[in-house]
Every structure is written in C-alpha cells, then in structure tokens.
C-alpha cells in the first residue's frame, strides 16, 4: 500500500539531491554547511517514518529509530542555519531574453505541466481512496491528499520533460535547488514551531497562563472574558507562529473553564471562532514562516516582511469581527 511515508521519502530525496549538488558546487560561498544542512534535513524527513510520534499521533511505520537521535539531528540542523551558516549560492539559469523567446514559442503549452499538479492532486484526493489491486486498497486510508500531491508532482515533471524536452533532464533539480535555496532555513521553522508548542505544553505554560487570566478577568464579565480569549489566541499565535499551538493554551486557560463552564457558551461556535481569532494572529507574525516568510522568499521580494504588512489591516479588522461573532453566536 502506498502511504504518505513514500512521499516524505520523495521529498527527503529531493533535499538530499540538493545537498549533494551543493557539495559539488565549488563556487558556493557556504558550500559545506549548506550541503550538511540540506542533507541532514533530507535524511531527517526520511528517518521520521521510523520514529514514534508524540502520544496520540498516528504510529510510525516501524518505530526502529529512537526519537532522541532524530531530535539531536534536528537540533544540529537548526543550529547550523540559526547561526547564519547557510545562504543561497548562484545557480546558472536562463536569461530574461531567453525566457521571453521560449514563452513566445511555447505559448500556453507552458501551463499544462503547472495545471497537471492541482488536477492530478484533486483527482487522487477524491477518487484515490477507491483504487484497489486484487482486492487490496492501493492507498493507505486518510493519506489520499498527500499521496495525490506526490503523484501529481511526478506526473507534472514527466509532462514537463515530455513537452519541453530539456537537453539534460537534471536541470529540473538545479532549478528546484535555485528556488529551495531562496527559501533556505525557513523550510525548517514550521516543524520547530510545532515542537515549541509541544514543549510549552509539557512545561506547563498553559496552566500558568490560566492562573494569570483568573487574576485578571472579573467573575461575571462576559465581554472581557471573550476579549481575553480572542486576543489571547491572536497574541499567543503571534508568539508561537501557530494557532494550533495557541489553542490548547488559551482554551485550557479561558475558553473552557470561564466561557463554557461558568458562562454557558456553546462549545462548537466558541472554539471555531477562537481558532479563527488565532488565524488573525498568524497573518501578522514572521513566526508563521511557511505562510509569511516563504512566499516573500519565493517571490524574491526586497522587503521580507512586505506580505505581513499587507495582511495586518485585514487581520485587525477580522479580529474585531471575530470578537463580535464570539459575543453573539456561542450565547444564543
């Protein structure tokens, strides 16, 4: 059965190829540290399949690698990049003029491989669960979207090679390396943030925040409690870059004990809107690297906070709207 793990290996393999390419790039300014960074990251992605996840998460394939070993590798990777030892090299690519000429000649054919990705992903996400060979399901249940993305990427690459016929098919990987290197260390930040959330919870940060909130919020002020919950979600998300990490903290501190138990709020609308208030925080923080730092890096923007600046006004207005919704819907 094909599962998400296959796709992680594919992605790990791509990072590994990038690492090896950099190792052979004599002109790379930070050749060896970059090579180690991408190779370690690639190896960690693959190794993750053999490490048991945190309690409650789906079990790994064969938990044969101790998780402290992977943890050590991840910390080393983070420190290499964290101390500024990585940075992009220069990859030879086509010039603007060559691209104009190629675009004029190939016209809309260029969109075909790009559109193959969503088309195949969606097809497999919707229909993949029914594929079977000899009575056995082909895909592991619940992994259709991830597997779909992986298969779609391979399909798009094959279509791209067939339509564009590059002299050396490996240019796809050098071009991929060019884009990946512009993202750089931000590629690892999301995983580190989810670990931070895990560690904060284990260290009891949520309980401590609850203690503080109990001192601040007066017994019967529904408006104040709602505001503390919504702003707290946004605030903790700002710090931790992830509304998923803020949710357990603020829900244990305010959402459940004060709003639901004391004031009788309906849980479904309260928690749904609470999470969305957290998303307003996500829009404003560079800690949400994969949403707010990766796109500016990918787009080669001069101002790496440019996207966040655009999002802040929408986030503030939407947070105010969420507070209003939270005052109304859970208390009907």
């Amino acid at each position, binding site marked *: 059965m094909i599962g998400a793990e296959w796709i*992680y290996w594919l992605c790990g393999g791509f990072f590994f190829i990038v690492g090896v390419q950099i190792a052979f790039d004599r002109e790379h300014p930070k050749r060896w540290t970059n090579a180690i960074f991408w190779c370690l990251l690639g190896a960690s992605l693959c190794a993750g399949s053999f*490490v048991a996840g945190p309690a409650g998460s789906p079990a790994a394939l064969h938990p044969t690698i101790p998780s402290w070993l992977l943890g050590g590798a991840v910390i080393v990777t983070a420190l290499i990049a964290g101390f*500024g030892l990585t940075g992009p090299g220069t990859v030879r690519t086509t010039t603007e003029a060559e691209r104009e000429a190629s675009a004029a000649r190939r016209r809309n054919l260029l969109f075909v*491989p*790009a559109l193959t990705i969503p088309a195949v992903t969606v097809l497999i996400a919707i229909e993949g669960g029914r594929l079977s060979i000899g009575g056995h399901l082909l895909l592991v249940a619940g992994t259709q979207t991830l597997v779909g993305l992986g298969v779609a990427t391979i399909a798009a690459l094959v279509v791209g090679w067939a339509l564009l016929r590059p002299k050396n098919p490996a240019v*796809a990987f050098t*071009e991929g390396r060019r884009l990946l290197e512009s993202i750089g260390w931000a590629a690892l930040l999301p995983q580190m943030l*989810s670990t931070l959330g895990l560690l904060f919870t284990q260290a009891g940060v949520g309980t401590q925040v609850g203690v503080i909130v109990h001192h601040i919020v007066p017994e019967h002020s529904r408006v104040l409690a709602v505001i503390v919950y919504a702003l707290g979600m946004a605030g903790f998300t700002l710090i931790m870059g992830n509304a998923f990490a803020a949710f357990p903290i603020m829900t244990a501190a305010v959402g459940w004990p004060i709003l639901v138990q004391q004031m009788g709020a309906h849980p479904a609308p309260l928690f749904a809107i609470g999470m969305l208030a957290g998303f307003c925080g996500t829009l404003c923080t560079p800690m949400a690297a994969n949403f707010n730092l990766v796109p500016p890096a990918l787009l080669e923007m001069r101002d790496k906070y440019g996207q966040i600046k655009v999002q802040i006004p929408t986030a503030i207005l939407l947070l105010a709207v969420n507070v209003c919704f939270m005052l109304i819907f859970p208390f009907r």
Partner: protein
Amino acid sequence: MIVLLGVALVVVGFALRINPLLVVTIAGIVSALLGGVSPLHILEAFGSGFASSRSITLAFLVLPVIGLLERYGLQQRAKTLVSQAAGLTAGRLLLVYLFVRQLTAAFGLTSIGGPAQMVRPVIYPMAEGAVMRSHGRVPEPVTEAIKAHAAAADTIGVFFGEDCFVAIGSVLLITAYVDANYHLKLDALQVAIWAVPTAIAAFLIHGFRLLRLDARVAAMMADSPEQPASAQ
C-alpha cells in the same frame, strides 16, 4: 510562573531580530528545562515533533517542476496572456484568485493554489501583466506591492476557506483536543459551519482592500517618474 520565561525569550529574541530558528530552538529547550522536563525527553520531543509535522515540508516537492517551467518562460507567458485581456486589473485578478482559493479550500481542495504552485509562477506574473497593460510599465515599488498582495491573497484565502471543511487540520484539532480533555462529543460539521461567517467577513474585508489596490497602484505610478531623471 518561571516557565513563562520561554515565552518571553521568543518575544525578546524576535524583537532583537535574532534568527527565528535559533530563538525557537533555544526557547523550547529553556522552557522545557525550567518546567522540569528531562534533557532526554526534550531531545525526544524534537524528534517526534519533527516527525509528526513533516507534511508542511511537502509543499516544496513541486519546486523542480516550477523551476523547470520558469526556465522555459512560464512567468513571461502568464504576463503576456493577461496583458492582452481588457478590463482585467491587478486588484480584480487577485480578487478572483482570493475567491477561488477560499471556495476550493472550503471544499477541502487546499492544494489548488499555494505560493510555490500558483503565486510565483502564474498569479503574480499575471497581476504584473495587468499593471503593465494599463500603465505601460511596472516600477519597482509597484512590483513589491503586487508581490505582497498576491502572496497575502493566497494566505488569507486558504486560511479562512479551509476551516469551513470538516476534515481539515484545524477542525480536527479542535474536536480531538476538546473531546479528549473535556469529555465532549463535538460534531466536526458544527465547528466547520461556525467558521462560515468569518470566512464571509474575510472575503468582504480583504476583497474590498484588493479592489482599492488598483487606485493605490495608480497613485504609486503618479509618484514614480516616467524615466529616471538623467540630464536637464
């Protein structure tokens, strides 16, 4: 109370503009140590935390294809295509993208779109092509603004669309966490439905701002001189 030092570390580290990767790693280790977590458990948390959040990384799998297409002029073609379409402005184009992104995400199709798959190769060049068509040129500040708005439309669209879908991470996290800790049986569909009002508000607020983008671009055009000032 002392465990909150970890939270403070993140804030201070960010304020001092230290590399976030370094800040997060150290803040995690420090607060866990202060909270009495053993060093071995900390290492294990890093290992299992990384292993269980790898799915985020898979977005980068598309980079070789996108890189290949760029090599052969995908961005240039997207620009040309839009610069031929009358009436299509950058703001209107991004509004349509916001709508499509939100709607498809609401049906669980979050992998339609994304910064690597759609924004860099197609959406941003198209928006720039639209500016090119109506103004004849795209000075650098306008390029920056267009890029920022294209990326923001993508993020806002997927954020406030996907929560209306029952089987998405955030909805599942809410129900799983609440059910496990407070012995409720929360219906995922109920949670998803209560995300709809905010989704509509997000579209109205951000959509309005996107429509105003065209006026802003026009103002930026007026500010930037036609040609770099050379001789008298």
